[in-house]
């Protein structure tokens, strides 16, 4: 197992004049499974491709084990970003047959595990003589999964690996991932929109919102401090005074909010309220949804619980 960390500092990425990533600071440890969560257009794929030197940064630094990753084979030998394959493009990788694409990957990745790749091809019942562009969306995802797992790279990034996969194939992927992880201690960072079923895999979750890191925290700790409170509106307000409150919803006299507690805080006693645990998906809606406007009490304005990323504004 490698001990190298992947670190980026004040990473900014612009496409033309449009700034996509606004000063990202991130540190990825060895032997972890990270979840990367964010809305469409939040910058997830851009972040993954700049972290893995598939796309140049506009400013800022990205290093692996202290070495810059850009055009640096010593660092890139340990990094794999298995890109999502796009069915609409008929050229490039997509014009290759599956077996030739895998062959290319086996040359590209120095630690390629041929046996693992072959076994996964069989398990997923992939037709390797087909051209990539002729595959269904789910089969394309299988190809990206095989490349990610068989690359044996210490830092492996998967972008939407389960998109289009049926539930049985998704389950198979989660188990393959865990068995590879428990055997090797490689780090995996996985972006996904199917949050509900993947959240238990993530030791840490990274929320990316509008080109900024909103949160990076142990999934367990994060969920333990998130609570959904509902009841009579004035009771909800009274019990949550002074707390960080997100995503208020009102219906008549009833109100519900999502609360993120800070250490030592709790919901005030003495009110007839329902409090329920929040899963990662609920939390994502509460923090990143259109009605996520939140009230953080004055006393916390200087030390907000939610990181707004390195730089504010543009």
């Amino acid at each position, binding site marked *: 197992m490698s001990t190298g960390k992947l670190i980026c500092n004040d990473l900014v990425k612009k496409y033309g004049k449009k700034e996509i990533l606004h000063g990202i600071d991130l540190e990825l440890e060895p032997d972890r499974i990270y979840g990367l969560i964010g809305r469409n257009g939040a910058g997830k794929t851009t972040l993954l491709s700049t972290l893995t030197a598939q796309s140049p940064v506009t400013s800022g630094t990205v290093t692996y084990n202290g070495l810059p990753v850009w055009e640096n084979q010593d660092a890139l030998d340990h990094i794999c970003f298995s890109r999502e394959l796009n069915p609409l493009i008929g050229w490039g990788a997509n014009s290759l047959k599956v077996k030739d694409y895998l062959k290319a990957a086996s040359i590209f990745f120095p630690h390629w595990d041929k046996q693992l790749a072959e076994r996964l091809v069989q398990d997923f019942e992939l037709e390797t003589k087909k051209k990539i562009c002729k595959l269904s969306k789910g089969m394309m995802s299988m190809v990206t999964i095989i490349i990610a797992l068989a690359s044996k790279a210490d830092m492996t990034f998967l972008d939407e690996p389960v998109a289009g996969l049926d539930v049985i194939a998704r389950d198979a992927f989660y188990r393959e991932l*865990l068995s590879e992880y428990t055997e090797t201690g490689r780090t995996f960072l996985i972006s996904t929109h199917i949050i509900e079923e993947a959240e238990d895999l993530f030791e840490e979750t990274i929320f990316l919102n509008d080109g900024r890191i909103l949160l990076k925290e142990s999934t367990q700790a994060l969920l333990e401090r998130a609570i959904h409170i509902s009841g009579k509106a004035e009771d909800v307000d009274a019990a949550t005074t002074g707390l960080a409150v997100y995503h208020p919803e009102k219906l008549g006299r009833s109100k519900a909010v999502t609360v993120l507690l800070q250490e030592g805080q709790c919901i005030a006693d003495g009110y007839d309220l329902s409090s329920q*645990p929040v899963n990662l998906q609920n939390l994502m809606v509460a923090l990143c949804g259109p009605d996520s406007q939140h009230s953080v009490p004055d006393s916390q304005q200087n030390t907000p619980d939610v990181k707004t990323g390195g730089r504010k504004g543009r």
Partner: protein
Amino acid sequence: MNEYLSQEKSIYLQIAEMLENDILRDVLLEEERVPSTNELAKLYAINPATAAKGINLLVDTGVLYKKRGIGMFVASGAKEAIRMRRRNGFFDSYLSSVLEEARRLNISRSELISMIGDNYERGTKES
């Protein structure tokens, strides 16, 4: 083991609880090895760190102990210890919510007691 995980409670607590349930119903016997962290992780498709947290909880309470290089084992006396601890927590875990609902419905103390008395002997609780 093999119960479904729910969203209502932290996963590691559920892992600990399921292992305890299996000890109570003799699926896991005292002085027997319990599934490893990695086995649990794969079975439930959860992060091994979460599974380890559940197991460590049971080590802390003395239900499991570690045999170096072999794995985790059920301590002797674990079954009775679990039963005692759950008895002690019975009010907070179960009765307090019953009382809360009873008060909300204006069910009096004597009504509640007679309801329990009438139904205690019947295995099933019908209204």
